[in-house]
């Protein structure tokens, strides 16, 4: 649906890249045309924000399912879809289909599978997929073990100016592990792997990206050692960015106690020191993106013995509220929260969204950052309620959502 009437958002707090300021925002034909002190023009439909935040719609860099009700609940207007679908997104036709699948009120940005069937061997048709709508290349749930393949991939993607989204865990070390080696895994008798599987993989991927002069985004960096590697690489100018999901800054491996499969994630939850390191890395800018990793899983995948359960959590609805805890704890300010949730992921994907600037897509969320609510796995919008945050009181809700200037109604 096209925006037919110009809209003016007034009486709200605009979330700019530099800070939060009172002001108004005008959008026409799906684009933002004015930001600041604006007066209604003839024919404008005025939207009174009633003091709420006027923020860019969230850009979720890394989801495993298109789950529109959950995305809209969470203020997500664009979602970058991982190639781990059935069948994998290794063909231009599937990219093209998915790129249109959410429109008009949700834009899905499918990520091209780096290799055929995501097997880590033969490169997929990246240029054809780019031209069919793929905004990035992703290695999927697995890392590419063969360094030669990874180097050729990075070089090729650099030529196409596509960011490579990688999953960084050394598969030789992780094997069949479902937990991070440590006291919890040992007590529960779970197959586990040392957390060092991550820095090893991150070190290699950074080295290859540097060599290939490619853009590398590591979707989840969850250990102190790997974050140090990213920090150092950024300092010497490597085009590497890092992401994380809320689980890894909210929870440690203690959450897996009693074999709670909703806390079975990939990478697995880490020890407390690594959780603290993730928070520090969000604070100092080493981490650029926070995404939901939205992966709704029903009982057939989760009501199983821990090691037999599938990894993943339904994260779209809780993404905003969890990031707002960091604002309340003074780890980051509100402007940076929306850099992590919208501006930076949009920039990595190369889409004109994620910021309140003239010319950008009018993807707007009206947000009450204080509104309290309780996460309830039985009452989720997502297609499954596998959240490790069940029964947790949180704050921050989306009051209204606009995609391309048009209100989203579910």
């Amino acid at each position, binding site marked *: 649906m096209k925006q037919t009437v110009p809209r003016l958002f007034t009486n709200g707090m605009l979330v700019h890249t530099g800070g939060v300021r009172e002001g108004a925002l005008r959008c026409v034909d799906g684009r933002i045309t004015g930001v600041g002190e604006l007066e209604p023009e003839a024919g404008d439909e005025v939207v009174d924000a009633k003091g709420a935040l006027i923020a860019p719609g969230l850009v979720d860099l890394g989801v495993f399912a298109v789950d529109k009700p959950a995305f809209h609940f969470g203020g997500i207007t664009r979602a970058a879809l991982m190639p781990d679908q059935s069948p994998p997104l290794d063909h231009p036709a599937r990219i093209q289909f998915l790129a249109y699948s959410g429109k008009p009120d949700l834009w899905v940005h499918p990520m091209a599978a780096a290799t055929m069937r995501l097997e880590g061997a033969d490169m997929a048709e990246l240029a054809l997929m780019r031209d069919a709508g793929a905004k990035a290349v992703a290695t999927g749930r697995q890392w590419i073990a063969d360094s030669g393949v990874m180097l050729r991939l990075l070089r090729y993607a650099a030529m196409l100016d596509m960011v490579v989204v990688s999953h960084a865990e050394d598969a030789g070390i992780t094997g069949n592990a479902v937990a991070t080696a440590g006291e919890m895994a*040992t007590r529960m*008798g779970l197959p586990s792997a040392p957390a060092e599987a991550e820095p090893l993989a991150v070190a290699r991927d950074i080295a290859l990206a540097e060599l290939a002069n490619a853009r590398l985004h590591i979707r989840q960096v969850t250990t102190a050692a790997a974050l140090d590697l990213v920090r150092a690489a950024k300092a010497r100018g490597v085009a590497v960015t890092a992401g994380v999901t809320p689980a890894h800054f909210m929870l440690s491996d203690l959450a897996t106690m009693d074999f709670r499969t909703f806390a079975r994630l990939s990478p697995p939850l880490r020890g407390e020191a690594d959780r603290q390191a993730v928070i520090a890395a969000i604070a100092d800018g080493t981490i650029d993106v926070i995404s939901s990793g939205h992966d709704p899983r029903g009982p*057939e995948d989760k009501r199983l013995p*821990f*090691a037999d359960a599938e990894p993943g959590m339904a994260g779209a609805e809780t993404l905003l509220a969890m990031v707002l805890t960091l604002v309340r704890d003074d780890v980051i300010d509100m402007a940076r929260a929306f850099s992590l949730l919208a501006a930076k992921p949009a920039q990595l994907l190369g889409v004109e969204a994620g910021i309140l600037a003239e010319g950008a897509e009018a993807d707007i969320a009206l947000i009450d950052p204080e509104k309290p609510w309780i996460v309830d796995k039985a009452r989720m919008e997502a297609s499954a309620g596998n959240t490790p945050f069940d029964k947790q009181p949180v704050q921050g809700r989306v009051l209204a959502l606009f995609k391309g200037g048009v209100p989203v109604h579910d």
Partner: protein
Amino acid sequence: MTATPTPTPAGRYPAGGQAFPHRDLTGIGHLETHEIMFLLDEAEQWVALNRQPSKHTDVLSGLTIINAFFENSTRTLLSFEIAGKRLGADVVNMQAAQSSLKKGETLIDTAVTLNAMRADAIVIRHASSGAVQLIADKVDCPVLNAGDGQHEHPTQALLDALALRYALKEKGRSEFAEGFWGLKVTICGDILHSRVARSNILCLTALGAEVRVCAPPALMPDGIETMGAAAFTDFDSALDGADVVMMLRLQNERMSGQFIPSPREYRHLYGLTAGRLERAAPQALIMHPGPMNRGVEIDSDIADLADSSIITRQVEMGVAIRMACLEVLTRRARGVDGWSAGEWA
């Protein structure tokens, strides 16, 4: 999770059902020291009964016990079956091939099915850690863990403690009559993949023993010290002055990839030989949960060493301890005086 070792004189327990306020026996990690002692004390009457020519009681007459084994087992299944039958219960064995029950809904469905058959106790073995707890949450009757993945094997640890109690008594070690305070126990073998090691560390440390575990680095789990055991890679050091040596086999079926170069190299470093045994305290007791790989982790002459090896004694105690567990856990269902439902911790 480890129970605090507080000495409790045998026979003096909280009244009635408070002596064992759990519906299920899913792991030693959930038990207090006095609850472990209670089960050991209860088992003594069954040791005595099992040594009679007529080994039958009707305590559990009319009850149905289902042994649901989702992983291969010979001795544990047999032991539970004999225990149930000697108590007069109707015992049914269900041995399901792991392959046909790999999918979880099926596992839950199986649990619900067993529950619908109105079992009075279900004994479960499963290849995945936590699977027994998962089933326990879905059924209405007591559930006994007969081994879940690499997590726990509580009746094995209890029978080991009972076997030790009897053996130490026979040796005149009266200082260990009320617990194992000061007893040095060395557990050597594939600690990483062993639920027996985990349950034994929890049980023996709860009873006061000083536990050492010994394994090559690849077979030693991370953070084992936090469970209360001292970790060794050198077998000779681990054996130094040990009162008890418990050997575990290599669980090749659980290994992905190569953990040791060869069985003969493993024996070279970790095999219990006559020469090595001299490192331990004089007349140290030798244990093995079975099945043994003679000539790998333990030499034949050591395994069969009269007076020192209590390996067959462990098997004997297994039946008694399982009788005790079944009898205690069904007390609420049988309406035993002082044991009412719904009072568990």
